[in-house]
Protein backbone atom coordinates (compact mmCIF):
# COMPACT_ATOMS: atom_id res chain seq x y z
CA UNK A 1 0.00 0.00 0.00
CA UNK A 2 1.66 3.19 -1.18
CA UNK A 3 1.60 6.15 1.18
CA UNK A 4 -0.19 9.31 0.23
CA UNK A 5 2.76 11.60 -0.51
CA UNK A 6 4.14 8.92 -2.81
CA UNK A 7 0.77 8.73 -4.55
CA UNK A 8 0.58 12.48 -4.88
CA UNK A 9 4.04 12.56 -6.40
CA UNK A 10 3.24 9.70 -8.77
CA UNK A 11 0.21 11.58 -9.92
CA UNK A 12 1.97 14.93 -10.29
CA UNK A 13 4.79 13.38 -12.29
CA UNK A 14 2.58 11.39 -14.65
CA UNK A 15 2.69 12.70 -18.24
CA UNK A 16 -1.05 13.40 -18.24
CA UNK A 17 -0.86 15.60 -15.14
CA UNK A 18 2.21 17.39 -16.44
CA UNK A 19 0.52 18.12 -19.76
CA UNK A 20 -2.44 19.53 -17.88
CA UNK A 21 -0.07 21.72 -15.87
CA UNK A 22 1.71 22.80 -19.06
CA UNK A 23 -1.59 23.89 -20.57
CA UNK A 24 -2.62 25.66 -17.40
CA UNK A 25 0.68 27.51 -17.19
CA UNK A 26 0.63 28.45 -20.87
CA UNK A 27 -2.88 29.83 -20.46
CA UNK A 28 -1.94 31.88 -17.40
CA UNK A 29 1.12 33.22 -19.22
CA UNK A 30 -1.21 34.16 -22.07
CA UNK A 31 0.66 32.13 -24.64
CA UNK A 32 -1.15 32.06 -27.99
CA UNK A 33 -1.15 28.25 -27.85
CA UNK A 34 -4.56 26.82 -28.68
CA UNK A 35 -5.73 23.37 -29.54
CA UNK A 36 -8.24 23.94 -32.35
CA UNK A 37 -11.74 23.76 -30.94
CA UNK A 38 -12.99 20.92 -33.14
CA UNK A 39 -9.91 18.89 -32.24
CA UNK A 40 -10.72 19.31 -28.58
CA UNK A 41 -14.25 18.09 -29.20
CA UNK A 42 -12.97 15.13 -31.17
CA UNK A 43 -10.46 14.16 -28.48
CA UNK A 44 -13.20 14.19 -25.90
CA UNK A 45 -15.49 12.09 -28.10
CA UNK A 46 -12.63 9.67 -28.67
CA UNK A 47 -12.03 9.26 -24.95
CA UNK A 48 -15.69 8.58 -24.27
CA UNK A 49 -15.99 6.15 -27.14
CA UNK A 50 -12.87 4.32 -25.98
CA UNK A 51 -13.86 4.17 -22.31
CA UNK A 52 -17.39 3.13 -23.18
CA UNK A 53 -16.40 0.44 -25.65
CA UNK A 54 -13.71 -1.05 -23.46
CA UNK A 55 -16.11 -1.01 -20.52
CA UNK A 56 -18.81 -2.80 -22.48
CA UNK A 57 -16.47 -5.33 -24.04
CA UNK A 58 -14.97 -6.21 -20.65
CA UNK A 59 -18.25 -6.55 -18.75
CA UNK A 60 -18.40 -9.85 -16.92
CA UNK A 61 -20.93 -12.24 -18.40
CA UNK A 62 -23.16 -11.95 -15.36
CA UNK A 63 -22.38 -12.58 -11.69
CA UNK A 64 -22.18 -9.42 -9.57
CA UNK A 65 -25.65 -8.11 -10.43
CA UNK A 66 -26.34 -6.98 -6.87
CA UNK A 67 -23.24 -4.77 -6.80
CA UNK A 68 -24.03 -3.43 -10.27
CA UNK A 69 -27.59 -2.48 -9.33
CA UNK A 70 -26.41 -1.12 -6.00
CA UNK A 71 -23.86 1.08 -7.75
CA UNK A 72 -26.43 2.45 -10.18
CA UNK A 73 -28.82 3.26 -7.36
CA UNK A 74 -25.98 4.84 -5.37
CA UNK A 75 -25.09 6.95 -8.40
CA UNK A 76 -28.69 8.11 -8.78
CA UNK A 77 -28.96 9.07 -5.14
CA UNK A 78 -25.62 10.85 -5.06
CA UNK A 79 -26.48 12.83 -8.19
CA UNK A 80 -29.77 13.92 -6.66
CA UNK A 81 -28.53 14.55 -3.12
CA UNK A 82 -25.34 16.49 -3.83
CA UNK A 83 -27.16 19.47 -5.45
CA UNK A 84 -29.37 19.85 -2.38
CA UNK A 85 -26.37 19.93 -0.07
CA UNK A 86 -24.48 22.23 -2.41
CA UNK A 87 -27.39 24.61 -2.79
CA UNK A 88 -27.88 25.17 0.93
CA UNK A 89 -24.15 25.48 1.54
CA UNK A 90 -23.92 28.14 -1.15
CA UNK A 91 -26.94 30.01 0.18
CA UNK A 92 -25.55 29.91 3.73
CA UNK A 93 -22.01 30.89 2.90
CA UNK A 94 -22.25 33.17 -0.13
CA UNK A 95 -24.38 35.95 -1.60
CA UNK A 96 -25.07 34.15 -4.87
CA UNK A 97 -28.63 34.63 -6.06
CA UNK A 98 -30.92 31.62 -5.88
CA UNK A 99 -30.93 30.92 -9.60
CA UNK A 100 -27.17 30.86 -9.83
CA UNK A 101 -26.77 28.85 -6.64
CA UNK A 102 -29.21 26.23 -7.97
CA UNK A 103 -27.39 26.09 -11.29
CA UNK A 104 -24.00 25.69 -9.59
CA UNK A 105 -25.41 22.97 -7.34
CA UNK A 106 -26.68 21.03 -10.37
CA UNK A 107 -23.16 21.01 -11.85
CA UNK A 108 -21.74 19.34 -8.74
CA UNK A 109 -24.37 16.62 -8.64
CA UNK A 110 -23.59 15.76 -12.23
CA UNK A 111 -20.21 14.46 -13.36
CA UNK A 112 -17.15 15.32 -15.40
CA UNK A 113 -16.38 12.47 -17.77
CA UNK A 114 -12.85 13.78 -18.34
CA UNK A 115 -12.14 13.60 -14.62
CA UNK A 116 -13.42 10.03 -14.73
CA UNK A 117 -11.16 9.26 -17.68
CA UNK A 118 -8.18 10.81 -15.93
CA UNK A 119 -8.92 8.64 -12.90
CA UNK A 120 -8.89 5.64 -15.22
CA UNK A 121 -5.41 6.76 -16.25
CA UNK A 122 -4.39 7.12 -12.61
CA UNK A 123 -5.65 3.67 -11.60
CA UNK A 124 -3.85 2.28 -14.59
CA UNK A 125 -0.59 3.83 -13.36
CA UNK A 126 -0.99 2.53 -9.82
CA UNK A 127 -2.10 -0.82 -11.22
CA UNK A 128 -5.52 -1.11 -9.62
CA UNK A 129 -8.53 -2.49 -11.50
CA UNK A 130 -12.11 -1.23 -11.30
CA UNK A 131 -15.48 -2.63 -12.30
CA UNK A 132 -16.29 -1.84 -15.91
CA UNK A 133 -19.91 -1.11 -15.06
CA UNK A 134 -18.76 2.14 -13.47
CA UNK A 135 -19.12 3.50 -17.01
CA UNK A 136 -22.84 2.94 -16.68
CA UNK A 137 -22.78 4.78 -13.35
CA UNK A 138 -21.28 7.79 -15.14
CA UNK A 139 -24.26 7.85 -17.47
CA UNK A 140 -26.76 7.45 -14.65
CA UNK A 141 -25.29 10.34 -12.65
CA UNK A 142 -25.41 12.84 -15.48
CA UNK A 143 -29.06 13.85 -15.29
CA UNK A 144 -30.75 13.57 -11.88
CA UNK A 145 -28.70 16.55 -10.71
CA UNK A 146 -30.16 18.69 -13.47
CA UNK A 147 -33.71 17.86 -12.48
CA UNK A 148 -32.99 18.54 -8.82
CA UNK A 149 -31.21 21.79 -9.69
CA UNK A 150 -34.23 23.01 -11.62
CA UNK A 151 -36.55 22.07 -8.78
CA UNK A 152 -34.40 23.99 -6.31
CA UNK A 153 -34.43 27.02 -8.59
CA UNK A 154 -38.20 26.96 -8.93
CA UNK A 155 -38.77 26.40 -5.23
CA UNK A 156 -36.23 28.83 -3.80
CA UNK A 157 -35.43 31.36 -6.51
CA UNK A 158 -35.63 34.93 -5.18
CA UNK A 159 -37.75 36.24 -8.02
CA UNK A 160 -40.74 34.67 -9.69
CA UNK A 161 -39.85 33.93 -13.27
CA UNK A 162 -41.33 36.59 -15.54
CA UNK A 163 -43.92 35.61 -18.11
CA UNK A 164 -41.29 35.94 -20.80
CA UNK A 165 -39.34 33.32 -18.96
CA UNK A 166 -42.33 31.06 -18.75
CA UNK A 167 -43.05 31.42 -22.43
CA UNK A 168 -39.45 30.75 -23.26
CA UNK A 169 -39.18 27.77 -20.98
CA UNK A 170 -42.26 26.39 -22.60
CA UNK A 171 -40.83 26.81 -26.07
CA UNK A 172 -37.57 25.23 -25.08
CA UNK A 173 -38.81 22.29 -23.11
CA UNK A 174 -38.46 19.62 -25.80
CA UNK A 175 -35.03 20.92 -26.51
CA UNK A 176 -34.13 20.86 -22.84
CA UNK A 177 -35.21 17.28 -22.36
CA UNK A 178 -33.07 16.22 -25.30
CA UNK A 179 -30.20 18.26 -23.92
CA UNK A 180 -30.51 16.39 -20.65
CA UNK A 181 -31.18 12.84 -21.76
CA UNK A 182 -29.61 12.72 -25.19
CA UNK A 183 -26.59 14.91 -24.82
CA UNK A 184 -23.77 13.83 -27.06
CA UNK A 185 -21.33 12.68 -24.39
CA UNK A 186 -23.82 10.33 -22.79
CA UNK A 187 -24.97 8.98 -26.13
CA UNK A 188 -21.41 8.13 -27.18
CA UNK A 189 -20.46 6.73 -23.79
CA UNK A 190 -23.54 4.56 -23.40
CA UNK A 191 -23.77 3.71 -27.09
CA UNK A 192 -20.15 2.58 -27.23
CA UNK A 193 -20.67 0.64 -24.00
CA UNK A 194 -23.60 -1.24 -25.49
CA UNK A 195 -21.73 -1.86 -28.76
CA UNK A 196 -18.72 -3.09 -26.83
CA UNK A 197 -20.96 -5.36 -24.82
CA UNK A 198 -22.61 -6.76 -27.97
CA UNK A 199 -19.42 -7.29 -29.92
CA UNK A 200 -17.38 -8.43 -26.93
CA UNK A 201 -13.70 -9.40 -27.06
CA UNK A 202 -13.65 -10.05 -30.83
CA UNK A 203 -15.03 -6.57 -31.45
CA UNK A 204 -12.52 -5.10 -29.05
CA UNK A 205 -9.69 -6.94 -30.81
CA UNK A 206 -10.63 -5.31 -34.11
CA UNK A 207 -10.57 -1.74 -32.88
CA UNK A 208 -8.10 -2.03 -30.01
CA UNK A 209 -5.23 -0.44 -32.00
CA UNK A 210 -7.42 2.66 -32.29
CA UNK A 211 -9.05 2.89 -28.85
CA UNK A 212 -6.55 1.02 -26.70
CA UNK A 213 -2.85 1.66 -27.24
CA UNK A 214 -3.05 5.37 -28.16
CA UNK A 215 -5.45 6.15 -25.29
CA UNK A 216 -2.89 7.42 -22.77
CA UNK A 217 -1.29 9.70 -25.36
CA UNK A 218 -4.59 11.14 -26.52
CA UNK A 219 -5.50 11.79 -22.91
CA UNK A 220 -2.26 13.79 -22.52
CA UNK A 221 -3.07 15.95 -25.52
CA UNK A 222 -6.61 16.48 -24.29
CA UNK A 223 -5.47 17.42 -20.80
CA UNK A 224 -3.06 19.93 -22.34
CA UNK A 225 -6.13 21.46 -23.95
CA UNK A 226 -8.15 21.27 -20.74
CA UNK A 227 -5.34 23.10 -18.94
CA UNK A 228 -5.49 25.90 -21.47
CA UNK A 229 -9.27 26.11 -21.29
CA UNK A 230 -9.41 26.00 -17.52
CA UNK A 231 -6.84 28.74 -17.03
CA UNK A 232 -8.42 30.97 -19.69
CA UNK A 233 -11.81 30.55 -18.08
CA UNK A 234 -10.18 31.43 -14.79
CA UNK A 235 -8.47 34.52 -16.20
CA UNK A 236 -11.65 35.73 -17.87
CA UNK A 237 -13.60 35.84 -14.62
CA UNK A 238 -10.88 36.41 -12.06
CA UNK A 239 -12.06 38.97 -9.55
CA UNK A 240 -15.75 38.38 -10.19
CA UNK A 241 -15.90 35.58 -7.65
CA UNK A 242 -16.03 36.05 -3.90
CA UNK A 243 -13.92 33.91 -1.58
CA UNK A 244 -16.87 31.89 -0.21
CA UNK A 245 -17.80 30.96 -3.76
CA UNK A 246 -14.26 29.96 -4.66
CA UNK A 247 -14.02 28.01 -1.44
CA UNK A 248 -17.13 26.07 -2.39
CA UNK A 249 -15.37 24.80 -5.51
CA UNK A 250 -12.61 23.42 -3.30
CA UNK A 251 -14.51 21.86 -0.41
CA UNK A 252 -17.57 20.63 -2.30
CA UNK A 253 -15.53 17.97 -4.16
CA UNK A 254 -14.30 16.72 -0.78
CA UNK A 255 -17.86 16.43 0.49
CA UNK A 256 -18.85 14.68 -2.73
CA UNK A 257 -15.93 12.27 -2.49
CA UNK A 258 -16.75 11.48 1.13
CA UNK A 259 -20.35 10.73 0.20
CA UNK A 260 -19.14 8.64 -2.72
CA UNK A 261 -16.89 6.57 -0.47
CA UNK A 262 -19.68 6.12 2.05
CA UNK A 263 -22.00 4.90 -0.69
CA UNK A 264 -19.23 2.59 -1.95
CA UNK A 265 -18.98 1.04 1.51
CA UNK A 266 -22.71 0.40 1.61
CA UNK A 267 -22.75 -1.11 -1.87
CA UNK A 268 -19.64 -3.17 -1.18
CA UNK A 269 -17.36 -1.98 -3.96
CA UNK A 270 -13.70 -2.86 -4.43
CA UNK A 271 -10.86 -0.31 -4.02
CA UNK A 272 -10.72 0.79 -7.67
CA UNK A 273 -14.47 1.12 -8.09
CA UNK A 274 -14.86 2.94 -4.77
CA UNK A 275 -12.24 5.45 -5.92
CA UNK A 276 -14.17 5.85 -9.14
CA UNK A 277 -17.45 6.48 -7.36
CA UNK A 278 -15.72 9.06 -5.15
CA UNK A 279 -14.24 10.74 -8.22
CA UNK A 280 -17.63 10.87 -9.90
CA UNK A 281 -19.30 12.33 -6.84
CA UNK A 282 -16.48 14.84 -6.43
CA UNK A 283 -16.43 15.97 -10.03
CA UNK A 284 -18.60 18.69 -11.55
CA UNK A 285 -20.01 18.80 -15.07
CA UNK A 286 -18.89 21.48 -17.53
CA UNK A 287 -20.19 20.04 -20.78
CA UNK A 288 -23.81 18.97 -20.57
CA UNK A 289 -25.05 20.85 -17.53
CA UNK A 290 -23.93 24.37 -18.54
CA UNK A 291 -25.69 24.05 -21.88
CA UNK A 292 -28.84 22.77 -20.18
CA UNK A 293 -28.73 25.58 -17.63
CA UNK A 294 -28.50 28.24 -20.34
CA UNK A 295 -31.86 27.04 -21.58
CA UNK A 296 -33.54 26.16 -18.33
CA UNK A 297 -32.21 28.88 -16.03
CA UNK A 298 -31.02 31.58 -18.43
CA UNK A 299 -30.77 34.17 -15.67
CA UNK A 300 -28.29 32.17 -13.68
CA UNK A 301 -24.78 33.53 -14.12
CA UNK A 302 -22.90 31.28 -16.54
CA UNK A 303 -19.53 32.81 -15.71
CA UNK A 304 -19.93 31.60 -12.13
CA UNK A 305 -20.83 28.01 -12.76
CA UNK A 306 -18.36 27.57 -15.59
CA UNK A 307 -15.49 29.03 -13.61
CA UNK A 308 -16.24 26.95 -10.54
CA UNK A 309 -16.63 23.61 -12.30
CA UNK A 310 -14.09 24.05 -15.11
CA UNK A 311 -11.44 26.39 -13.75
CA UNK A 312 -11.30 25.41 -10.07
CA UNK A 313 -12.86 22.04 -9.30
CA UNK A 314 -11.58 20.31 -12.42
CA UNK A 315 -7.91 21.24 -11.87
CA UNK A 316 -8.28 20.48 -8.16
CA UNK A 317 -9.52 16.98 -8.89
CA UNK A 318 -6.86 16.32 -11.54
CA UNK A 319 -3.94 17.55 -9.50
CA UNK A 320 -4.98 16.73 -5.93
CA UNK A 321 -8.35 15.05 -5.72
CA UNK A 322 -7.87 11.77 -7.55
CA UNK A 323 -4.83 10.55 -5.57
CA UNK A 324 -6.43 11.88 -2.38
CA UNK A 325 -9.67 9.98 -2.87
CA UNK A 326 -7.68 6.88 -3.72
CA UNK A 327 -5.59 7.23 -0.58
CA UNK A 328 -8.77 7.70 1.47
CA UNK A 329 -10.27 4.59 -0.08
CA UNK A 330 -7.09 2.70 0.81
CA UNK A 331 -7.23 4.01 4.36
CA UNK A 332 -10.85 2.92 4.63
CA UNK A 333 -9.71 -0.57 3.79
CA UNK A 334 -11.60 -1.17 0.57
CA UNK A 335 -10.64 -4.59 -0.77
Amino acid at each position, binding site marked *: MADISQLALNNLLAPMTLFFALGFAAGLARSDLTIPEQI*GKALSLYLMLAIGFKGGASMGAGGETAVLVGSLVAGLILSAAIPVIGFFLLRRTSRLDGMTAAAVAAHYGSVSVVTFVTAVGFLDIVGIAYQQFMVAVVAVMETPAIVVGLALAHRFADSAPRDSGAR*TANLGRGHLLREIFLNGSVVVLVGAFVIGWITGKPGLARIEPFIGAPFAGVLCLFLLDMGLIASRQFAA*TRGQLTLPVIGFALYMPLIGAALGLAAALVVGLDLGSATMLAVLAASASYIAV*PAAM*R*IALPRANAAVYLTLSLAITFPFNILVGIPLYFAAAQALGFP
Partner: protein
Amino acid sequence: MKRNGANGVMHTKKKIEVIIEQPASHLVTELLDRHGATGYTVLSAATGRGSSGWWERSPVTVARQQVVIIAVIAPERAPAIIDDLGTLLQDFHGVVFVSEVEVIRSERF
Protein backbone atom coordinates in the same frame (compact mmCIF):
# COMPACT_ATOMS: atom_id res chain seq x y z
CA MET B 1 -38.33 38.77 -67.02
CA LYS B 2 -36.94 42.23 -66.77
CA ARG B 3 -33.62 42.95 -65.11
CA ASN B 4 -34.21 45.39 -62.33
CA GLY B 5 -31.05 46.28 -60.38
CA ALA B 6 -29.69 48.64 -62.99
CA ASN B 7 -33.13 50.11 -63.53
CA GLY B 8 -33.53 51.12 -59.95
CA VAL B 9 -36.43 48.77 -59.23
CA MET B 10 -35.27 47.65 -55.84
CA HIS B 11 -37.39 47.02 -52.79
CA THR B 12 -36.85 48.08 -49.23
CA LYS B 13 -36.84 45.34 -46.61
CA LYS B 14 -35.82 45.05 -43.00
CA LYS B 15 -32.65 43.25 -42.03
CA ILE B 16 -32.82 41.85 -38.52
CA GLU B 17 -29.57 40.78 -36.90
CA VAL B 18 -29.75 38.86 -33.66
CA ILE B 19 -26.63 38.03 -31.69
CA ILE B 20 -27.63 35.44 -29.14
CA GLU B 21 -26.15 32.62 -27.11
CA GLN B 22 -26.16 29.38 -29.06
CA PRO B 23 -28.26 27.34 -26.60
CA ALA B 24 -31.12 29.77 -27.30
CA SER B 25 -30.59 30.12 -31.04
CA HIS B 26 -33.30 27.65 -31.91
CA LEU B 27 -35.77 29.83 -30.01
CA VAL B 28 -34.96 32.64 -32.44
CA THR B 29 -35.20 30.54 -35.56
CA GLU B 30 -38.47 29.01 -34.39
CA LEU B 31 -39.74 32.51 -33.70
CA LEU B 32 -38.78 33.56 -37.23
CA ASP B 33 -40.51 30.49 -38.63
CA ARG B 34 -43.70 31.26 -36.69
CA HIS B 35 -43.72 34.83 -37.98
CA GLY B 36 -43.44 33.71 -41.57
CA ALA B 37 -39.88 34.83 -42.28
CA THR B 38 -38.91 33.32 -45.63
CA GLY B 39 -35.34 32.59 -44.63
CA TYR B 40 -32.47 33.20 -42.29
CA THR B 41 -28.74 32.53 -42.09
CA VAL B 42 -26.79 31.70 -38.95
CA LEU B 43 -23.08 32.46 -38.46
CA SER B 44 -21.06 31.21 -35.53
CA ALA B 45 -18.95 33.91 -33.87
CA ALA B 46 -15.37 33.45 -32.71
CA THR B 47 -15.25 35.64 -29.64
CA GLY B 48 -16.94 38.67 -28.13
CA ARG B 49 -17.76 40.73 -25.11
CA GLY B 50 -20.96 42.12 -23.62
CA SER B 51 -22.58 42.87 -20.31
CA SER B 52 -22.13 39.23 -19.33
CA GLY B 53 -18.40 39.41 -19.90
CA TRP B 54 -15.95 38.07 -22.44
CA TRP B 55 -16.23 34.70 -24.13
CA GLU B 56 -14.49 32.68 -26.83
CA ARG B 57 -15.24 29.43 -28.68
CA SER B 58 -14.74 26.49 -26.40
CA PRO B 59 -14.27 22.81 -27.20
CA VAL B 60 -15.98 21.77 -23.99
CA THR B 61 -19.23 23.67 -23.95
CA VAL B 62 -21.43 25.85 -26.13
CA ALA B 63 -22.84 27.55 -23.04
CA ARG B 64 -21.16 30.91 -23.80
CA GLN B 65 -20.94 30.60 -27.60
CA GLN B 66 -22.74 33.39 -29.49
CA VAL B 67 -24.24 33.13 -32.95
CA VAL B 68 -25.28 35.83 -35.40
CA ILE B 69 -28.66 35.24 -37.01
CA ILE B 70 -29.45 37.33 -40.08
CA ALA B 71 -32.96 37.52 -41.51
CA VAL B 72 -34.13 39.83 -44.24
CA ILE B 73 -37.88 40.21 -43.96
CA ALA B 74 -40.79 42.13 -45.35
CA PRO B 75 -41.11 45.39 -43.37
CA GLU B 76 -44.65 44.62 -42.25
CA ARG B 77 -43.45 41.55 -40.37
CA ALA B 78 -40.76 43.47 -38.51
CA PRO B 79 -42.65 44.97 -35.54
CA ALA B 80 -44.10 41.71 -34.29
CA ILE B 81 -40.80 39.88 -34.69
CA ILE B 82 -38.84 42.59 -32.89
CA ASP B 83 -41.41 42.61 -30.13
CA ASP B 84 -41.02 38.89 -29.55
CA LEU B 85 -37.25 39.07 -29.80
CA GLY B 86 -37.29 41.74 -27.13
CA THR B 87 -39.19 39.39 -24.84
CA LEU B 88 -36.72 36.60 -25.54
CA LEU B 89 -33.74 38.81 -24.85
CA GLN B 90 -35.04 39.59 -21.39
CA ASP B 91 -33.92 36.10 -20.50
CA PHE B 92 -31.03 35.34 -22.80
CA HIS B 93 -27.74 37.03 -23.51
CA GLY B 94 -27.62 38.87 -26.78
CA VAL B 95 -28.58 41.92 -28.76
CA VAL B 96 -30.81 42.63 -31.73
CA PHE B 97 -30.48 45.39 -34.29
CA VAL B 98 -32.50 46.30 -37.31
CA SER B 99 -31.62 48.18 -40.49
CA GLU B 100 -32.99 48.80 -43.95
CA VAL B 101 -31.72 46.99 -46.99
CA GLU B 102 -32.64 47.01 -50.66
CA VAL B 103 -33.33 43.78 -52.45
CA ILE B 104 -34.18 42.59 -55.90
CA ARG B 105 -36.93 39.98 -56.27
CA SER B 106 -39.21 41.45 -53.64
CA GLU B 107 -41.55 38.47 -53.71
CA ARG B 108 -38.96 36.27 -52.03
CA PHE B 109 -39.17 38.04 -48.66
